[in-house]
């Protein structure tokens, strides 16, 4: 059987960016993808949780920790997860110094946000001790 395609690996840490329409929404998505690429967390579908897709909800329950990354104080990701019965570790990019409407989303900003998130609560976001990322 195709064990190479097995999805039975440990769920670990799942990351849910708000992926909103603003610059900080875009940043939340980009930083989540960077952290996933670096192996710090696994990207997951917030929309699937919002839609209460049973398979998505049950898959999220298997995770050790859930991280919500929100671009602004509306905290959509955190609230969607809470509405589904989860208690995520929450990051608001505004609290990390990224202002809505004034944030340029480029590699430097993404790296800065990733470092602040994994460094701020690093022990909660990843198995690795480093506060930064892989540099990819």
């Amino acid at each position, binding site marked *: 059987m195709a064990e190479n395609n097995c*999805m*039975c690996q440990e769920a670990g840490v799942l990351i849910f960016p708000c992926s909103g329409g603003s610059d900080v929404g875009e940043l939340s998505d980009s930083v989540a993808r960077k952290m996933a690429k670096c192996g710090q967390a696994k990207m997951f579908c917030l929309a699937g949780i919002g839609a209460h897709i*049973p398979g998505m909800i*049950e*898959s999220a329950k298997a*995770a050790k920790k859930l991280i919500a990354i929100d671009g602004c104080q509306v905290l959509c990701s955190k609230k969607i997860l809470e509405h589904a019965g989860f208690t995520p570790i929450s990051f608001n990019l505004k609290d990390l110094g990224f202002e809505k409407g004034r944030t340029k989303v480029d590699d430097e900003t993404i790296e800065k946000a990733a470092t602040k998130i994994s460094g701020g609560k690093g022990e909660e976001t990843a198995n690795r001790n480093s506060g930064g990322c892989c540099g990819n």
Partner: protein
Amino acid sequence: MKIEILGVGCPKCKQLTANAEAAVKELNIQAEIGKVTDIDKITEYGVMMTPALAIDGTVVSAGKVLSKDDIKKLISK
């Protein structure tokens, strides 16, 4: 009742299947136990972590090897 085990067929999936079969046997109910091994079909269920268990088309567990007793409770709900 239709019980489906979602997973590509690794040892965890096989264990969950065995536990489901044991649960059905102990409850002495009529249930069809099927396997979904195609990743596309597993994804259609929204499952990102396997093994997963679906009862009558609804995923009730994912990413865990439920025990026989856990499955009995879910079936009896």
